[in-house]
């Protein structure tokens, strides 16, 4: 059984982006996930976001762990290198890739099991390093690939398909990210492409670690009535706290916002994020405040979505390391070697 590649039909009339590429150029192999799986909607949003930003496909690096969610990289931008690593360890591989080539747009895709169970340590430490990475969790509250065990994000009281009730409190990626120091933190829903695409674009443009926790229901194992991660439940308790528009560098902000309503955040590349809060009390620039607000809403059974925290001034891994501008991977080893002339001086210390 080999991998099934999607038949490619070029319509001459398809819309082109700044690079002259169509949406097709950002697609990948045909999905082998279950029909209706939330993950496939995330894939579609990613295709859209990369296309809209006109990222050269070969400059994308797609990384993942293991899980249904971790198969996503096979389904978008087939012109980019992809890497399915081992379970829970994508953050470290992404760190290495980003360290080696700072010109890559690294996109890491993970699941709730992959990130919050086996991968919890690496997930937290990647955030702490603030490497330049768009990190998506396709969060369905279960281990899809191993057939429906609760993951660490399963809510207390949620029922498995087999009837078992989860007793433990969930690990919430957004709260975890606030504690661990991530500099761009968002939550969204696979069913809300209108919200998801601008978030992805903003995350790709954010210089540093950008987390988007995407609620992405598992139709096969966690879409029943007693699940708190089903489509129905998610739609019901979904509450956008911040609406966001992404405005690319060249463009002007065209929509008119009411005075005081909109808050503009300028990213390193000149893009602007226009945030419109649904609640005055919320401050997406304040970590302490964000935690409190989100946690309180969770206690009330509501989960807030949108860009929940952002620090546009943060310095990413290479800034902190003062790495050269050129990708390290592009420096030829012989150009880095100090050569025979330097050796006597070096060895003098050991005489």
């Amino acid at each position, binding site marked *: 059984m080999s991998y099934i590649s999607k038949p490619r039909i070029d319509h001459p009339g398809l819309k082109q982006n700044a690079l002259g590429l169509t949406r097709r150029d950002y697609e990948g192999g045909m999905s082998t996930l279950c029909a209706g799986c939330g993950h496939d909607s995330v894939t579609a949003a990613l295709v859209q976001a990369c296309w809209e930003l006109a990222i050269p496909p070969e400059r994308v690096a797609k990384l993942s762990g293991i899980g249904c969610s971790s198969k996503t990289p096979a389904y978008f931008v087939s012109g980019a290198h992809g890497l399915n*690593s081992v379970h829970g360890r994508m953050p470290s591989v992404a760190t290495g890739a980003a*360290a080696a080539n700072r010109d890559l747009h690294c996109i890491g895709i993970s699941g709730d099991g992959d990130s919050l169970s086996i991968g919890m340590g690496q997930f937290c*430490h990647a955030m702490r390093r603030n490497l330049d990475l768009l990190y998506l969790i396709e969060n369905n509250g279960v281990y899809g690939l191993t057939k429906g065990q609760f993951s660490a994000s399963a809510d207390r009281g949620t029922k498995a398909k087999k009837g078992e009730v989860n007793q433990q409190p969930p690990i919430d990626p957004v709260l975890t990210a606030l504690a661990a120091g991530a500099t761009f933190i968002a939550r969204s829903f696979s069913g809300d492409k209108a919200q998801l695409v601008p978030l992805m674009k903003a995350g790709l443009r954010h210089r540093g670690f950008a987390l988007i926790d995407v609620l992405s229901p598992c139709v096969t194992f966690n879409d029943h009535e007693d699940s708190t991660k089903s489509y129905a439940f998610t739609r019901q308790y979904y509450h956008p706290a911040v609406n966001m528009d992404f405005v690319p560098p060249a463009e002007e902000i065209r929509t008119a916002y009411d005075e005081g309503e909109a808050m503009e955040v300028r990213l390193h590349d000149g893009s602007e994020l226009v945030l419109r809060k649904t609640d005055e009390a919320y401050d997406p620039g304040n970590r302490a405040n964000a935690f409190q607000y989100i946690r309180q809403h969770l206690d009330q059974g509501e989960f807030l979505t949108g860009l929940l925290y952002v620090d546009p001034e943060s310095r990413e891994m290479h800034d902190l390391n003062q790495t050269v501008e050129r990708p*390290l991977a592009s420096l*030829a080893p012989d150009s880095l070697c100090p050569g025979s002339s330097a050796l006597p001086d070096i*060895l003098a210390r*050991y*005489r």
Partner: protein
Amino acid sequence: MKSIFRMGVPVVGKNFFPSNIQGLPTWYEIRVSGEKHLARRDGVDVMVAMNAQTYAEDLACVVPGGVLIYDSTWPRSGELDRDDVQVLGIPLSAMCNEAFDGVRARILMKNVAYVGALAALLDLDLAVIRQLLEETFASKPALVEANLKAIHMGHDYASTHFACPLTARVEAAEDTAGHIMIDGNTAAALGCLYAGATVGAWYPITPSTSLMDAFRSFCSRHRVDEASGQRNYCVVQAEDELAAIGMVLGASWAGARAFTATSGPGISLMSEFLGFGYFTELPAVLFNVQRVGPSTGLPTRTQQADILSCAYASHGDTRHVLLFPANPGECFEHAVAAFDLAERLQTPVIVMSDLDIGMNDWMCPEFEWDDDRHFDRGKVLGPAELDRIEEWGRYRDVDGDGIPWRTLPGQDVRGAYFTRGSGHDEFARYTENGDVYRELMQRLDAKWKTAAGLVPGAEIDEHAGAAAGLVTVGSCADAALEARELLAGESMPMDYCRIRAFPFGEDIRGFLERHEVCYVLEQNRDGQLKSLIVNEFGIDPARLRSVLIYDGLPVSAGSVASGIRAWTKNEVPA
């Protein structure tokens, strides 16, 4: 020790320290050898008993006719005397308490005063010592004076009270010209610098930590642009070893030369990723500075007991390329070679150093560097090459050596492929087809055979006529060579083969075939190198005789010789 070296006399020092930060005894052993033997000796000629706690043990180690120096400020029990040892008391504490202020200074200076006394007894050159002190404390001249004061104090006391120098004195010589004193971790780090490594990721663990420390320090001097302060490298302290190897694989995948340094427990943690590297064919360089296992074991003692766990690390059918340096010079060489091999073979390469090599200062010939040296980046296709190729498959063996061509991210959509630890075909596409899987595994085996021809060959020294061979590895080398001399003197001539890499080459097979019996000397309980030899060559294990020394101390020639003698005695029917 360094003063002896500067006087041109071959010397080797071994530091024995406990796994805690302060409080338990530490000792330091120095061997001075006119015949240039650099292995550990079995007894001690001149012992400095620094700790009252271990006085009895220390005394027991001294060879008959030897000398023991101790701090006579405190009385020692008379029971602890030996007739065959000359015991010299110097009231060092008393002297230092008088001469210096502050607890810390007094303790430190006591040790320095010992050196002064030793200098008198061994006839060391005080001018050399002064020069060393000046270099060490270049920025703190006050310390030079204080240290010199203590040195002179000890020197004067010894000169006045004892017949100096002893018979076991050190004579200046010219044997160390063109040599340096360096530890293996520093040498390996220098190799990484010269190999053009740009990404280092590691998690601290004794005895490997100083390797990455040294790399960073070399980089800070040789890899920072003076004007901009920008760095040509990126060292990441990982949260653990799983992350460290993940970073190395990610960086290698993206095209950088990347490495990590660790020790046994780290290797265990890395084993899932090592299998991933093997199966997806990603380069990676690892330094395993071995310590005594299993588990935490004796973290500050040396051993060669990770041979099997590294060779076969990870579940499934896996095998990894190993390099076995025997001294800091080879640490430097093997470090450079490891990057070339990893990229050429597209697989993880583990440099198997150990605590003895890594953390002790060894005397070795100055390293050399040939500016014409060619860096082997292996089979990488860029856009220009892709232009010329009709159909490229990431895992296709087009050259018949089992090594396919790879591409790097960031360059060309035509080079895009998907790296996965699951089943894949020649075009890197997912497959569960059993035949495709088997062919892939067979190609990896073919690549392994290619590897055997590329890795460093063994060091072989053969005199026609010797029926027995002595096969060894890594830091056993010096003791093995010295033991061979000893045994040659007992009419037991032996040929010598020091293995420098796994997979084993044809040179090793030939050596084994030419000798009826080979003694395999290694530092572990289970004869791991021997197992590897038998597994790879399918030779009859009855022809291999293990000499196993694994108490955590560097091997001495005497123990090697008696290990071999024990076998030959057993041969004679009782």
